[in-house]
């Protein structure tokens, strides 16, 4: 049996910190409630019950959703968790992002990050998950990521609604002189059925806020849910179809300045010199300043209009120094391969004895393959931007971001202001995909605001700046080998995956100085923790010393591992002469959740039924972020070009809180993955990224978009994520479909390096 101490030593930094932190602080402090940040700044007649709810005497009810709304629908579904228990309709509430505060820590993101497969419910796995959740609270990490918002809010936010409801009932009981137990609540009112009297929450709010909340409230059983489990119209939709100024890039103040940045395109490279003489003569240009940040070296132009700032930035003559990173892709691949060759990998799970199984394997039973995935930009639709104002000793930052607590840390570091003098306002996000966890765009805005004498300044990046600067999804290289048995199924599988560490990069950027040595389980996510049963199996991870900054990119390690691992599974199925879907059924026989998905997929897609010669199907399966997903992609040969014609997705997130939104997330995740698989890459030449705009870093368009058919199952018994899990399997399913069509096995992404697409 593996001890927790051993796991701490062999897992990545946050895991280790989690275990150490959990033990050192103990659970006592963990039980202490965190301060309700809404108490500060209540309006006249307004009362707050907990960090999620404000009720005013005029019946305005505000629900705080402490996770960024970046398209995934968190605003509506998270608010519905509160509304369900509070007994109000979604029409009765206003939803806000709320301030940055420790009370909004996300423990699920860390809990789910524990280095165990989602289906591992052993005592060790659960203990480490709990310890990591504790550390989530100590780090007070408020962030949106890891497809964790619902898992995190599911208990907390329903409990917040239920506790407030019971407190309002207690206040009504006092007023009406009846026992609280005889009262009911509905649509924002407490009702005394006997007397027919009712009181609105607004009438009760101020009194109720003075009562100690009951400690033993009961949550509604699922059968009584009115909102959850049913599709809700998204609350952010009306503003978004009418073009309201709700995004970071829309922030506006009367005396605001407009700026842009230009940073060394070579990651980590310095700025040798810059000459702004011409730029400063241009209309509207106020200042050109050097920026020397942990995240980039370069300059900013401050002007009275964004376009004038863009134009002046082009007129600045700048000399960049070379960065320390790899010069081109060939060098990157050499470093990745060399890391594996040097040995010393780590593993998180193994079965049998793969080394022995390969030692005496007959040549004809061996299958080997090497796969590659490139660096990728997130290319959110809204380019990076943030607005900052430093005035009268107070820093305000308006930022479309996924991690407001990180902006507070950065702001305090730069301005030396106390935590309560820094306000972070999270706007709507024009896409996040992990990019907006990063502090760079807020850091630059704060630095620029320190130069504008109290005037607010909005800093907008050009698209070129956005795409040609990371942090990127890391490149990765994997080698797989298998030994097939006489029945065609694998007796042994061994993988080696090399990639730079996302966790070390992120921790280093947020809290420089923390040690980032040790393994990073993100390198193996999607490879080591899949529900295949293979007698001898191990995947080794290697942290490659590529210095290009790398970040979370929708589904993180799964985004490359699923392509590689699931392509290899497909290769094994063909080598063993077993139908690829049947192959997976056999190896996943121990997991009924997976079998139900594969069976449903088979029926929906008419898998195995002959179609005409120009069409073929491929299948792939990934369990990520607690959600089990199987996908079939159908491709069509159109005069030598591949059209992605149809995609079938069957997903099991355990429980679906909003089926319509869940399906929208599956569709979004698949299209995001297809965009990458078909044609995206950040390649390097002379140490710098070669792509700069949608001309050379395009994404799927309307005319390329397949029909997407989605089915939801609810068997897994664990609430999984929605935002990311559809992305990983689609890339492999596409590659596998192409192989089924024409026998061409493409092992390197993007696939359009070897075949053309419509």
């Amino acid at each position: 049996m593996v001890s927790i101490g051993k796991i701490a030593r062999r897992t990545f930094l946050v895991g280790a910190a989690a275990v150490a932190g959990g033990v050192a602080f103990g659970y006592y402090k963990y039980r202490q409630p965190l301060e309700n940040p809404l108490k500060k700044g209540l309006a006249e007649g307004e009362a707050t019950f907990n960090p999620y709810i404000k009720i005013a005497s005029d019946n305005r009810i505000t629900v705080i959703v402490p996770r960024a709304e970046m398209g995934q629908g968190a605003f509506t579904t998270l608010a519905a968790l509160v509304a369900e228990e509070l007994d109000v309709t979604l029409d009765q509430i206003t939803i806000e992002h709320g301030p940055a505060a420790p009370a909004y820590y996300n423990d699920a993101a860390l809990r789910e990050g524990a280095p165990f497969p989602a289906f591992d419910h052993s005592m060790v796995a659960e203990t480490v998950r709990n310890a990591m959740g504790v550390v989530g609270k100590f780090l007070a990490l408020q962030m949106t990521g890891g497809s964790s918002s619902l898992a995190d809010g599911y208990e907390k936010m329903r409990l917040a609604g239920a506790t407030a409801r019971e407190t309002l009932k207690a206040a009504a009981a006092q007023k009406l002189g009846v026992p609280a137990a005889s009262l009911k609540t509905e649509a924002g009112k407490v009702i005394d059925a006997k007397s027919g009297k009712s009181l609105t929450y607004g009438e009760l709010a101020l009194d109720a806020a003075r009562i100690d909340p009951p400690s033993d409230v009961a949550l509604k059983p699922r059968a009584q849910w009115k909102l959850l489990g049913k599709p809700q119209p998204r609350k952010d939709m009306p503003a978004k179809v009418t073009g309201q100024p709700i995004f970071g890039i829309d922030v506006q103040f009367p005396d605001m300045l407009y700026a842009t940045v230009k940073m060394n395109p070579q990651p980590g490279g310095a700025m040798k010199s810059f000459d702004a003489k011409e730029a400063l003569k241009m209309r509207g240009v106020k200042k050109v300043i050097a920026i020397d940040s942990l995240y980039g070296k370069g300059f900013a132009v401050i002007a009275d209009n964004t376009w004038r700032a863009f134009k002046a930035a082009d007129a600045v003559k700048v000399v960049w120094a070379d960065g320390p990173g790899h010069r081109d892709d060939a060098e990157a691949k050499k470093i990745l391969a060399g890391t594996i060759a040097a040995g010393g990998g780590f593993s998180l799970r193994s079965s049998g004895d793969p080394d022995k199984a390969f030692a005496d394997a007959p040549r004809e039973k061996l299958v080997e393959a090497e796969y590659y995935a490139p660096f990728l930009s997130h290319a959110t639709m809204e380019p990076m931007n943030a607005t900052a104002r430093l005035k009268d000793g107070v820093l305000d930052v308006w930022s479309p971001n996924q991690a407001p607590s990180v902006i507070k840390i950065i702001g305090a570091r730069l301005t030396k202001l106390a935590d309560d003098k820094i306000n972070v306002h999270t706007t709507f996000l024009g896409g996040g995909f992990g990019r907006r966890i990063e502090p760079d765009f807020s850091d630059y805005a704060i630095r620029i605001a320190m130069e504008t004498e109290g005037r607010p300044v909005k800093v907008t990046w050009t698209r070129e700046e956005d795409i040609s600067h990371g942090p990127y999804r890391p490149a990765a290289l994997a080698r797989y080998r298998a030994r097939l048995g006489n029945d065609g199924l694998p007796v042994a599988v061994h993988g080696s995956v090399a990639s730079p560490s996302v966790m070390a990069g992120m921790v280093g950027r947020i809290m420089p100085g923390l040690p980032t040595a040790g393994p990073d389980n993100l390198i193996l996510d999607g490879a080591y923790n899949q529900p295949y049963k293979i007698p001898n199996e191990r995947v080794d991870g290697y942290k490659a010393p590529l210095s290009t900054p790398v970040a979370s990119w929708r589904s993180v390690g799964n985004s490359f591992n699923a392509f590689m691992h699931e392509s290899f599974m497909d290769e094994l199925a063909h080598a063993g002469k077993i139908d690829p879907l049947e192959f997976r059924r056999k190896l996943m026989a121990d997991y009924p959740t997976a079998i139900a998905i594969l069976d449903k997929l088979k029926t929906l897609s008419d898998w195995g039924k002959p179609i005409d010669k120009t069409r073929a199907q491929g299948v792939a399966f990934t369990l990520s972020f607690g959600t089990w997903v199987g996908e079939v992609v159908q491709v069509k040969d159109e005069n030598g070009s591949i059209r992605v014609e149809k995609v079938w997705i069957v997903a099991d997130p355990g429980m679906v809180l909003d089926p319509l939104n869940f399906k929208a997330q599956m569709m979004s995740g698949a299209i995001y993955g297809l965009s990458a698989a078909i044609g995206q890459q950040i390649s390097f030449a002379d140490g710098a990224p070669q792509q700069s705009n949608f001309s050379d870093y395009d994404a799927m368009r309307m005319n390329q978009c397949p029909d997407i058919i989605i089915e939801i199952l609810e068997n897994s018994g664990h609430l999984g994520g929605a935002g990311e899990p559809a992305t990983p399997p689609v890339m492999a399913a596409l590659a596998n479909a192409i192989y089924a069509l024409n026998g061409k096995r493409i092992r390197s992404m993007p696939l359009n390096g070897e075949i053309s697409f419509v």
Partner: protein
Amino acid sequence: MKLQVNGTVHELDIEPDMPLLWALRDELNIKGPKFGCGAGLCGACTVIIDGQATRACQTAVGDVKSNVRTIDGLGKPDALHRVQQAWLDEQVVQCGYCQAGQIMNAVALLETNPTPSDKDIDEAMSGNLCRCGTYPRIRAAIKRAAAGQQTGA
């Protein structure tokens, strides 16, 4: 110079080569048209001029002689244009950043072609990128709006 937007004439003292997008966003505080690429590649900045869907980032403000229609003048939350209503009915939107451009492009399409085929929709809409992958619902919403237009609903 004069610039007419959603029926209102504005007086501006700016360079004629400033892209219409930045005149609208930074000079007039009309924030409906979005900045996505600045190079005519994504459609986030789409406005309608003389009935044509036009990329505001590629149009010099000095060249604009007619009224510019932006989403800000299309409809309000309590009085939606039928295309916006169709968007709502199909629950199209995710992050929403591309959608002002998508909607304006769809409005221009339906004004010239009230019953677009799938191919017409592909041709008209493929210049409008959506990183959230809302295309299937955009298509459904355009068809719904077209059907409503037909019956006069």
